[in-house]
C-alpha cells in the first residue's frame, strides 16, 4: 500500500507538470521537449534560496517565477523565431531537444554533479486510507489540488481561459473575433511556465535528493501522461498523470524502481499505436 502513497505523490506532481506541458502544446503548438530542464533549473533556484535559509514553501514562488520567465523567454527568443521561418514542425522539436541538453548540462556546469536536498521538515506522519503520508507530502498534495482547481477555473470561467481554448481550437477564427492571439500565447507561456517551475520545485522536494540531471527522463512521463489523456487536453492530462503516476510507482514496487520510465514509455507506445488522440480525445479533423 505504500507504493500507492508514492504513486499519489508522483501523480500529483506529474499532473501539475503535464497540465503546463499540454497547455503549451495546445495553445502555442510547441512540443516543448526542454520542459524537464526548465523544471530542474527552477528547482535549483528554489534550492538556492532554501540553502540560504529561506523557508522551503516560500521558495516555491521563486521556482514558479523562474519557470514562468524562462519559458516565456524560450518562446520569445527561440521557438517563435524558428516558427516564423515556416520550417517543418520537427525543426522546433529538435531545437527544443537541444535547449533541453543545454539547460540541463549548463546547470550541471554551474552547480556541479553532486546531490542536494531541500531543507524541509517532513512533519508528522499520517495514516490515511491505508497510506502513510508525511505532513510535507500532504502539503504538496494540497498545493497540487488547489493549483489544478485554479487551472480548471481559469480555463472554464475566465475570459483569458476561454481565449486560450479558442486560440488552441482555431487561431485564425480567434483573431477574426478580435482575440489578440499573440498576447494570449505569451500569457500561456507565463502561466504554463509557472506550472513547470512549481512542478520542478515540488518534484525536487518530493524526490528528496536531486541533482542537475534528475529530471532528464521526466519528459517520458510527461509524454505518456499527455498522450494518455489526449494531447492538448488539460483534463485528460490530469487523468493521464494520475494513471502514469500510480502505474509507475506500483511497477517500481513490484519490479524495480529503475523501470519507472520504461513502464511510462510502454504506455506511451501503446497510446501512440492504438489511440493517438488519447482516451478522452476524439479524432479531430482539423
Amino acid at each position, binding site marked *: 500500500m505504500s507504493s500507492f502513497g508514492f504513486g499519489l505523490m508522483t501523480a500529483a506532481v506529474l499532473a501539475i507538470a503535464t497540465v503546463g506541458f499540454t497547455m503549451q502544446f495546445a495553445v502555442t503548438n510547441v512540443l516543448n521537449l526542454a520542459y524537464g530542464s526548465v523544471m530542474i533549473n527552477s528547482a535549483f533556484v528554489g534550492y538556492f534560496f532554501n540553502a540560504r535559509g529561506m523557508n522551503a514553501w516560500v521558495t516555491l514562488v521563486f521556482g514558479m517565477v523562474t519557470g514562468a520567465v524562462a519559458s516565456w523567454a524560450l518562446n520569445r527568443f527561440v521557438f517563435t523565431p524558428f516558427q516564423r521561418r515556416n520550417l517543418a514542425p520537427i525543426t522546433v522539436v529538435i531545437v527544443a531537444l537541444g535547449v533541453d541538453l543545454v539547460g540541463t548540462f549548463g546547470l550541471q556546469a554551474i552547480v556541479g554533479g553532486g546531490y542536494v536536498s531541500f531543507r524541509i521538515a517532513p512533519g508528522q506522519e499520517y495514516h490515511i486510507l491505508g497510506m502513510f503520508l508525511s505532513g510535507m507530502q500532504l502539503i504538496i498534495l494540497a498545493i497540487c489540488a488547489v493549483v489544478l482547481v485554479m487551472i480548471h477555473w481559469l480555463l472554464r470561467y475566465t475570459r483569458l481561459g*476561454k481565449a486560450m481554448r479558442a486560440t488552441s*481550437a482555431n487561431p485564425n477564427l480567434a483573431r477574426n*473575433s*478580435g482575440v489578440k492571439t499573440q498576447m494570449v500565447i505569451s500569457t500561456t507561456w507565463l502561466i504554463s511556465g509557472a506550472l513547470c517551475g512549481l512542478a520542478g520545485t515540488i518534484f525536487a522536494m518530493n524526490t528528496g535528493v536531486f541533482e542537475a540531471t534528475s529530471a532528464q527522463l521526466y519528459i517520458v512521463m510527461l509524454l505518456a501522461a499527455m498522450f494518455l489523456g489526449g494531447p492538448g487536453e488539460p483534463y485528460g492530462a490530469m487523468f493521464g498523470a494520475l494513471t502514469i503516476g500510480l502505474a509507475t510507482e506500483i511497477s517500481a514496487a513490484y519490479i524495480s524502481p529503475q523501470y519507472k520510465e520504461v513502464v511510462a514509455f510502454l504506455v506511451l507506445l501503446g497510446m501512440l499505436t492504438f489511440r493517438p488522440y488519447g482516451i478522452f480525445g476524439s479524432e479531430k479533423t482539423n
Partner: protein
Amino acid sequence: MSVELSQSGQVLTATGLSAGYDGRPIVQDVNIEATPGKVISIVGPNGSGKSTLLKSLVGVVPVLGGSVRVGDKDITNMTPEKVAALGVGYVPQIDDVFPPLTVKENLEIGGYLLARRDVATRIEAVLEFFPRLKVMLTRKAGKLSGGERKMLAMGRVLMLSPSVLVLDEPTANLAPIVATQLLEEYIRGFADHGSTVLLVEQRAKAALRISDWTCVLGGGRVVLEGAPRDLEQDPVFVESFLGGGAARHQAP
C-alpha cells in the same frame, strides 16, 4: 427584425486588389465595392480565388497589391483582430466555429471585444435571432448539425454588431430548405436592415435572387459583373452558372 443585430453599414472597397500565398498572387486586380443596404455576391468555379479574396479583405491572407478600405479607413493588411474591431464580421467557409467550446462559449468569444457587462445581453439578442441555439447553449459546437453550426458561426459574428458582413459560402452543405431560409430570411435581412453584405455563394441562382450586384470570379479575376437581372440575360453567364443545357452536367 425585432432586435438591433447589425449596425447600418459602411462601404467596403477593394481597389486593384491582388492577394495570395507565399508572395504568389491568386487574386489579381480585383475591384469591388460593397455598400450599405445591399447584398453584393461573388460567384465562380471552385478554385477561382473567392475564398482567397475574402480572406485578404479581412487580414487573413496578405494583400500583395492594391488597397482595401472600410468607410474612410485604409485596412490593407491590417491584422484580423483590428479588422474585427472596425466592425467587419467574417464567417469563413470552413473552420467557422470553435468545436471544443460550447455554443455559449463560442458566442462569448464572438463578443470578446465587448465590455464585459454587455456580453450577456448581447447573447440574449443573438439568441432571439437564432432561437434554435437557445436549447443547446451547453452543447459543444463540434456536435451541432450543419445548419445549427452555421447559425452559430453567424451568431458569433453578430455578437459585435458588425456593420459589414463578409460571408464565405454560408449555405455549403446545408439542406436546400435551410439554405434558402438562411439566404432569403437572414442574409437578405441584414442588408434590408442597412448592413453591408459581401457574400460568396456556390448556388448562383439562389445568389442572384437576393443580390443587388454580382461579380463572377474566374482565375482570380473578375470576368463578369452586373445586376442580377442583366446577368440572367447574359448567355455566357447562363451557360456557365444557371445550367443552360449541357453545362448543367459539367463541373462549373
